[in-house]
């Protein structure tokens, strides 16, 4: 996880000044999207401005206490208070205010002729993702991973199915809450390809800490290929083990999960038609391979207590391996 290295590097950070020296910045200051780019600029202005004002005030205070009475006489007068306390803040804050009005105007106003529309529904502790075409018809249903083309504005329609959540991909844009009964629109545009980790940023209960997701930015042709691949129905099982896995899947998992072109059509849980191709499992909790799938199936309540999926620990070793192999084969 790239944020692992970033945070480790944060520790070595003696002071803001030496940020440059550190190879990998915290996500907020490592923008890859137009939105985050401008916000990072503001962030730098604020850090430097705030830092300078702080040093200035501390110097004044030290001067007021330790300098010789003659030197600090000019400080001890009422119009210094008026000057520094009223005039200086009004001037600097007004400048800051108009600067940020200009920037936030650009951020919100950035319209794009044909944005890619994606609906994201926050669930208790995972993300349901619908790709919709211009008319609003559902093109693809997936979960916990949002693939977007580079250079094209993506409109994310955020709504919640239960409690408050907040969609936050620091590398691309600021956060926006998912509130039941309301649809918020977040515009995001990735400038460069890459995998960006996102995290739910509004406390939403027991597993708020394990409700992450990934945004994968591709070059346009790559994205179209990905979208086409994802729209295909599930791969049919090729070997007897996978066949056995599929029968087990339909019998035990079909009630909650959907795998297109199979009788499994449950809506409660995420769509697993192409789960094998996802980067992570259980909303960014585990890396995705046949081992972690088996571990998640058999002990999901141990890995993410109180989540909606029970632990299926009644399979024999053989059955569990066949089921996990089948799920992983849904590339």
């Amino acid at each position, binding site marked *: 996880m790239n944020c692992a290295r970033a945070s480790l590097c944060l520790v070595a950070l003696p002071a803001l000044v030496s940020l440059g020296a550190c190879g990998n910045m915290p996500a907020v200051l490592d923008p890859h999207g137009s939105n985050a780019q401008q916000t990072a600029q503001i962030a730098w202005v604020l850090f430097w401005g705030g830092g300078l004002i702080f040093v200035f005030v501390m110097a004044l205070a030290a001067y007021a206490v330790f300098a010789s009475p003659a030197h600090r006489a000019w400080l001890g007068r009422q119009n210094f208070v008026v000057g520094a306390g009223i005039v200086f803040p009004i001037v600097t804050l007004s400048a800051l205010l108009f600067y940020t009005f200009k920037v936030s105007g650009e951020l919100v106003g950035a319209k794009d002729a044909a944005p890619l529309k994606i609906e994201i529904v926050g669930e208790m502790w995972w993300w349901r993702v619908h790709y919709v075409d211009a008319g609003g018809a559902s093109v693809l249903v997936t979960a916990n991973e949002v693939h977007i083309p580079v250079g094209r504005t993506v409109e994310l329609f955020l709504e919640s199915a239960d409690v408050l959540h907040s969609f936050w991909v620091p590398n691309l844009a600021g956060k926006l809450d998912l509130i039941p009964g309301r649809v918020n629109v977040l515009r995001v545009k990735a400038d460069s390809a890459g995998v960006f980790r996102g995290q739910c940023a509004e406390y939403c209960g027991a597993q708020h800490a394990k409700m992450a997701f990934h945004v994968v930015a591709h070059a346009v042709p790559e994205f179209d290929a990905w979208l086409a691949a994802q729209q295909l129905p599930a791969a049919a099982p090729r070997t007897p083990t996978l066949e056995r896995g599929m029968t087990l899947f339909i019998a035990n998992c079909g009630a909650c999960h959907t795998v297109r072109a199979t009788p499994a059509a449950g809506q409660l849980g995420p769509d697993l038609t192409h789960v094998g191709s996802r980067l992570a499992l259980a909303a960014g909790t585990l890396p995705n391979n046949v081992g972690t799938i088996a571990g998640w199936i*058999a002990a999901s309540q141990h890995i993410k207590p109180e989540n909606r999926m029970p632990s299926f*620990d*009644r399979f024999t*070793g*053989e059955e569990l391996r066949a089921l996990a192999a089948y799920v992983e084969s849904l590339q």
Partner: protein
Amino acid sequence: MMRTLVILSGLAVLAIAGTALFVYSGVYNVAATRQHTAPVYWILETAMRRSVLRRVQEIEVPPLTERATIERGLRLYHPNCVPCHGAPGIAPEGFGLAMMPVPANLALTAREWQPAEVYWVVKHGIKTSGMPAWEFRLADTDLWAIVAFVATLPTLSPQEYRDRARAIAPLVAADAAPPASGADRGDAERGKVALQQYACVACHVIPGVVGANKTVGPSLAGIASRKYLAGVIPNGPDNMIRWLRFPQQIAPQSAMPDLGVAERDARDMAMFLETLK
């Protein structure tokens, strides 16, 4: 008052330091070929006798004189006890002779020990003496049968013993395992002893059991919440009992041997393992 306290504690510290030095130096010879020094021998014997005496008060002895009981006692005594203790006119096996302390000649024991004491020793065995516990190998009635027979040993001449022994069909312990007593849920405390008796402590780390720190097989810490046994069958009370009794059926080449665990002992062990969350 303070002074005596200081002196006492000083002595205590000295004593502890002394024993620690003695133990670490390895001066005491534990070889089986060298008998204890007289005082140590006396201390061990007395400690053993007193320990057995303390624990037999509540045991009530059933009638031991019927012929059938004695007859069954002989059928059990001959294959199970003779290898170490011998019999009138019959020598023990080589390993029985090479043990320190040497297994007692039971004809003398029958004269000096009460039947309840003999029963206790046969049932629970004696630590570091080589005398095994038969509680998990023989039913209670069979234990009393052996005691009944041992009581008659002083009256048998070698010839009589040899004739009687030839006339009976020996009854080896394995097939005389105690029957399962009802479908009770199993008693964890007895399960803990069973873990000892079936030598699980020789291969596994078992939290809460002294001496169970061996890493031949996997650690049993947290076994109760583990999802699979041997990676094959899902964990649960009945699967655990099946796994304890017939591991080779479930995981054929596994290093876990079939220990011939009685159904009741398996249930007790499962109850204890249930507590290792």
